[in-house]
Structures are given as C-alpha cells and as structure tokens.
C-alpha cells in the first residue's frame, strides 16, 4: 500500500517500544542474567508486582518479560532473563549502555491488596522467582502491612538458584521463612532435595489467613501445587497463579495467549485457582 505515514499520537504508539537503556547487568547463573533498565530521563515504569513488559531487541523480536523489581524502586527497574531462544540469547550479549525497546507494563499483576494483612505463601519454581521477587521486595518495603512471609523455592539444581544473596537476606528476617529445594542435589548441597511440593509438609500455615501466589514452571507443577494447597485447606480464591503463554502483542489482539475465553496478557497473567479451574487448557 502506498501512502504509509509515520504514526503519531498515543494510539499510533501502541506497538511502538520506548527506547530504554540498560544501566546495569550481571549474571545470576549460567543461564540467567539480570538487567537494570532505565527509561528516558529515569521516568518511572509505574508497574505493579507481577506485571510484565514487552521487551524488544530490535532485529530479534519482542517477548514478554516480568518486571522483577518492586514498584517502589525509583529511576529504573529490573528484568531477569533466562537464555532460551533467539531474543533472550541476544539480550544476554548486552550490557550497560546498550539500548532495548520497552512497551508496557501490561497484565494485571499479583493481588497485593488481597495480601495486605494476610500471611503470604509464595511458591516459586525456577525462573518463576523473578516476577515473585517484585512481590517479596514490595512486601519487604512495606513489611508491617503483611503477616508472615513464607517462600518455597525450587530449582533444578544448586547452580540454578537465583538471587542467592537476597534469599539469605530474606531468610535473615525472623518474620520470614525461606525454604529452598533442588530437583537434583549435586555434591556439596546440604539442603533439601525434591520438587517444590515436597517442601509443603515442612511449613504450617493457617489456611484461611493465607494468600498464596505461585509461579512454578511446567503446567503439571501447577496442578500438583494446587492439589497440595487444597489438601491443606487453602480456599481457591486465596490462591493465585501466574500463567505463561506465547504473546505477540501483549494487549489482547494477536490471539496467541488465549486460554478458554481469556487473554493471559490482559486478563492475566495472574489468575485465581477458582478461575483456573474453570479455564480449559489453562494448566
């Protein structure tokens, strides 16, 4: 078609990433790297914990990445990215000073309001800890507004553990319980071994006073976690899970992330267990 025009205005900008700068980057594990990203002029992203951005590495594409720093952090935000495919590999080659594209934040985020005044049980599997870190840090920064904080975290092996120092720091606080497990213990690992659900018997919770947020990797794990928690008496609308789908637009148009009648990008990615049970093909 002739007559193409460079768009302007807010609407035309829906698919236009804002150019942001990586101001810090460090490797967390052999496959995960955390980036500190700054928007122009240090403008705040304005996200809620659990929301994601559409991150562009131009020439490689765009992918949803959760913000892993709390909203309270000013001037920049963090993204923790696992090296998997084309875009994420290219991203891993970037460091301070490099430019990326950012759209968002998108999605609903975790139910921070529902968690206020409640005990918070956080179940994380693998890279799932990244988005949950924004929840944990946010709780930390407003510690008095929440009850107990219990983190159950499982990774494949000890070398996959993310944010080890922060795990230390979180567990140093007596109001918190932090339990870590690995699927395959390697030599020198003195901790727990087994999938994340094997940690459940090790904590006692008051099911009606607890809100659970979870992001646990493969769909079967969701089913296990949900079943265990139900057995422990946690009501379905106190459990929240963040789902993963392929997304092209992040705004409910491209159709890729549809689950039953919902769009994970706009109606989610966080859903209550009650919703998930009625959503076919969700987990």
């Amino acid at each position, binding site marked *: 078609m002739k007559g193409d025009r460079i768009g302007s205005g807010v609407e035309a900008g829906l698919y236009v990433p804002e150019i942001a700068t990586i101001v810090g980057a460090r490797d967390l594990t052999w496959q995960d790297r955390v980036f500190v990203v700054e928007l122009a002029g240090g403008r705040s992203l304005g996200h809620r914990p659990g929301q994601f951005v559409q991150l562009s590495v131009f020439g490689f594409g765009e992918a949803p990445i959760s913000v892993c720093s709390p909203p309270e952090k000013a001037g920049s935000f963090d993204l923790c990215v696992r090296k998997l495919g*084309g875009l994420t*590999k290219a991203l891993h*080659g970037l460091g301070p000073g490099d430019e990326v594209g950012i759209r968002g934040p998108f999605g609903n985020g975790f139910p921070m309001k529902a968690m206020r005044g409640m005990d918070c049980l956080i179940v994380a599997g693998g890279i799932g800890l990244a988005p949950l870190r924004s929840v944990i840090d946010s709780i930390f920064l407003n510690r008095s507004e929440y009850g107990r904080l219990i983190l159950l975290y499982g990774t494949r092996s000890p070398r996959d553990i993310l944010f080890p120092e922060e795990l230390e720091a979180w567990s140093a606080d007596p109001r918190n319980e932090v339990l870590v497990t690995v699927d395959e213990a390697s030599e020198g690992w003195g901790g727990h071994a087994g999938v994340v659900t094997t940690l459940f018997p090790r904590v006692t919770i008051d099911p009606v006073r607890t809100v659970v947020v979870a992001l646990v990797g493969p769909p079967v794990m969701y089913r296990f976690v949900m079943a265990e928690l139900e057995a422990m008496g946690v009501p379905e609308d106190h459990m929240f899970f963040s789902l993963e789908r392929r997304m092209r637009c992040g705004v409910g148009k491209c159709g890729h992330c549809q689950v039953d009648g919902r769009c994970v990008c706009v109606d989610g990615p966080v859903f209550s267990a009650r919703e998930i049970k009625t959503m076919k093909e969700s987990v």
Partner: protein
Amino acid sequence: MGGKPRVAFFDFACCEGCQLTVLGLGEPLIELLEHVEVVTWREAMSEKSEEFEVAVVEGSITRDSDVPRLKRIREQASTLIALGSCATLGGPHVSANRLDQSDLLTMVYGDRAREFEAGEVRPLSAEVQVDIPIYGCPINADEFVSVMKHVLLGRPYRVPNQAVCHECKLNQYECVYDRRQICLGPVTRCGCDAICTSRGHRCFGCRGLVDDPNLNAAREVLEEHGYRVEDILSVFELYATWARPEEGLGIVEPRAAVKSRKGSEPWRFRSSI
C-alpha cells in the same frame, strides 16, 4: 565477530540450480558480500580456502567416496547450511533408490557398468549434522538471504513449518483442487511463497513434508480423487522418499474409524452438508 565471517560453497550430486539462484540474486548478493567474505565457490571463482566458518552445501550424497569430503567440510564449518532439496531431502533423483544400484549402472553404462559407482541417494543429514536446512527445488532466493541475515546476526533461524496452503491463501491463489486436480500443498512445508500454485500448477512437494503431516488425510483425499495407493506413494516419493511416506501412510486406518460412526457417507464431507 572479528572480521567478516568466511563463507564457502560446496556441492555434491545436484543440478547446481540452488547456487545459481544465489548467483541470480543480483544486487542483494552484492550487498550481502559487504558482510561476508566468500572464500570458496568452485562454480563461481578459482580462489580456494580451507578456512571458513559458514559452509553452504548443495547436493545429495550418492557415493560413499563423497562422504569424506563432506565430513571435512563439516569439521571445518561452525555453521553448515544444507542448500536445497537434494541436500535436505535427497532431491528429485531420490527415487533412483527404488532400483537396484547395479541395474542403474547397467541402464546407463551397459557392459561397462562395473567401472562406475552408485549408492543410495541420501540427504546430507544422513552423514553429518546440518545446522540450517534451506528447502526447495530450487531454493527461494529470499529465504537464502533471510537465512544469511540470521547467521550474521547470530539469531536462530526458524524453518517455516506451515503448509504451502498458508502462502497459497495469503496470495489468494485459486485452489488447485477447485480445478479438479490434486496438490501436495496441504502436507508440504511452505517457504516458496506457493510459487507453483501461483500459476495454477499443483505443488509437487519439493520442500518436503511439514513436521507433523497428516498423511492419513492425504491418502484419503487422494484416494477420493481417484488415486490408488501406489500412485499416492509415487507422488510422495518424488521428493519425500527419505522421509519414508509409506510408513506414515500406513499407520492407522482412519476410514474405518470414521465410517463406523455414521454409515457410509462420512458426515464431514462438503457434499453432505
């Protein structure tokens, strides 16, 4: 990347049409040469080098005596691109495998057959690991350029995995079936921009099968168009012999399964709406 990546072209049994398609690119090839250094290309230049990172290999393997050369290329190359149907699937001459090798030789060389060598026709992947297959007989020039861009960028190339129908419909070509002819488009990997159906000709399947072809459906549909199983096999054999279509065509008996449900007229057919 430290200097331009060095690219070498090689070929085995083929018509060299894919390399010529590259050479026929014209201006884009000149632009591409800004980013790479072509160090070996027997068909186009006399310079030769054993030092290269990217090997572009056309042709299939038909003689055991060619295997060591291919292995040497593989050892040197960090990226090996298989160029065209011969390299990726065995090529149109793959159906020579139907015949006994000594018969083949006798057919051509008569009583001197013993002085010559023949072997099973096979794609490169039968002997070495292929990093990127570029399908097509011949390749689509744009796809070659796109692959080279991916290689230069270090971006994994995702081989198209839709059926030719995808591109055929995007281009709004009249379906060959509507002309009462058969077409292999529904089970053939796209990427050619449906060039054959653009002229009202059928797809012959030169890009091979999609990853998960429904060969049972293909067999049923072709049977309904009057093809016998031998004909169907022969149609598939043209390019996909290496993928052993007869195995796919024989695993289940869908007709029985479907027919048991509602008498003789399958309810799904358009005629029975």
